[in-house]
């Protein structure tokens, strides 16, 4: 990097191309194996929270349910409403998936071992990369809602946009505390900085704000206003069916995985855990799954917020609290 321009995506650790490709395939396949399992786990857990069994007919104790769901959705007709804008209508779900997959790349599953980093890529702008690409999914929602040519979809898309601006700032500020304590934006450095103490202890407020904003970020209960099955019949997804609908579903779980991954990297010490080094990715996955359990638990508990409640929570409560957290952290970092 001899250029005087700031390196936007300065990579912290260089590897052979084939290793990068192999890692991409491994992470991609791993996550795509996790997502269908997550769908059935979520449905079964929600069932247990409500004194029900959840899906238990397909395969032993319902384990083959995602397979049946995927087959059903993939077997459906690909259609488009007359009023839809063809290109944007198709682009919407693709963007959502794109944003989900690209953000997985920076989740660190372990340190550098034998010349291989246990992560997709370690960019020095880590957090900004996450914000940039995860926010792209809102373009997907907006475009698909608008391009569907249906008022329910449009309402859902508008809600998604309003939700984005109320939560994105709090989401960013909640991570800033951990970034300041580390002095780096790279997720790998942030995890390494938690060698002594996990950031959930000094940054508990930040963790709470990140989780609350994360529910909004992934459009999950209690902030699933863009979908709102009861009032908006799934909002921006109303006019979608078959594989395109499935891609929205997939993207929701991908985003949930990513947000939980970021949360565990920032606050729960990432891959840190007792045991030998090869356990690192397993510790990371365990932490992610634990956070996903929290997501499902909250979904089973809290009812959907009203629109104005959502806005006032975002602007009047989360944003000041996040700012205060950043201020206090900044002062403490300078003083100590």
């Amino acid at each position, binding site marked *: 990097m001899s250029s005087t321009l700031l390196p936007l995506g300065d990579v912290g650790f260089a590897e052979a191309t084939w290793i990068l490709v192999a890692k991409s395939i491994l992470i991609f396949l791993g996550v795509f194996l996790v997502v269908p399992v997550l769908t059935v786990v979520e449905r079964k*857990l929600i*069932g247990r*929270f409500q*004194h*029900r069994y959840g899906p238990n007919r397909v395969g032993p104790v319902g384990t083959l349910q995602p397979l049946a769901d995927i087959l059903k959705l993939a077997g459906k007709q690909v259609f488009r409403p007359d009023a839809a804008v063809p290109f944007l209508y198709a682009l919407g779900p693709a963007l959502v998936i794109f944003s989900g997959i690209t953000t997985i790349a920076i989740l660190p599953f372990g340190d550098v071992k034998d010349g291989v980093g246990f992560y997709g890529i370690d960019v020095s702008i880590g957090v900004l990369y996450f914000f940039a690409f995860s926010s792209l999914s809102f373009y997907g929602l907006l475009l698909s809602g608008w391009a569907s040519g249906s008022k329910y979809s449009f309402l859902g898309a508008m809600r998604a946009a309003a939700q984005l601006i109320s939560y994105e700032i709090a989401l960013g500020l909640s991570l800033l505390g951990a970034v300041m304590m580390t002095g780096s934006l790279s997720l790998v450095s942030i995890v390494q900085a938690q060698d002594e103490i996990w950031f959930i202890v000094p940054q508990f407020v930040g963790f709470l704000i990140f989780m609350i904003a994360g529910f909004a970020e992934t459009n999950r209960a209690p902030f699933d206003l863009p979908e709102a099955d009861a009032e908006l019949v799934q909002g921006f997804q109303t006019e979608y069916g078959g594989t395109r609908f499935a891609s929205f579903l997939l993207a929701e779980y991908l985003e949930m995985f990513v947000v939980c991954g970021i949360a565990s990297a920032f606050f729960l010490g990432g891959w840190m855990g007792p045991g030998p080094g090869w356990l690192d990715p397993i510790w990371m996955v365990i932490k992610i799954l634990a956070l996903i359990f929290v997501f499902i*638990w909250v979904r089973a*508990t*809290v009812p959907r917020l009203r629109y104005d409640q959502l806005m006032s929570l975002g602007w009047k*409560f989360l944003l000041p609290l996040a700012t205060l957290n950043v201020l206090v952290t900044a002062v403490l970092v300078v003083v100590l």
Partner: protein
Amino acid sequence: MSEEFPYLEDDDVVAVQRGPEPGGAGGAYRAFGETLRGLKTTMARLFEGPDTIQYPEEKTPVYPRFRGRHKLHKFEDTGLEKCVGCSLCAAACPADCIRVVADENDPENRVSAGERYAAVYEINLSRCIFCGYCEVACPFDAITMGHEYELADYNRGDLIFTKEMLLAESIERAPLRREGE
């Protein structure tokens, strides 16, 4: 009347209990606390296990007085039908779904214990409302409501039960509720 009720019992005054005003730091604190309480409640449900009855495999038990599909009865000792074809059940039926055609008994070859018997006894179960009036109207306890409730069929015609079908010993598919259950 104590101080808690400064109004007469049959007075129209209703004391309105107001919750705390929303908003402010107190509101945020209460919302957070209540959310935690809700999370605790749902978590407790998780460990209680499901209450579902897995229907086709397990069946909801019925009470002894459950009014399911009708049954016609015979005398256990003589094997004669209890029904004497009086049509009182048909008269009592509000849905008008019972059809009885009575005939004289042949003394050599009796069908029922009485003078007459039901030559035709049909119940249209697609019309029956399972009120049990037929059972109440019957002077000989010849017709009773059974426990069977899985009566779905593919044709309406198949739901017209004839005397043979009603007399047949039906398999008790529905479990009976235990005492005090």
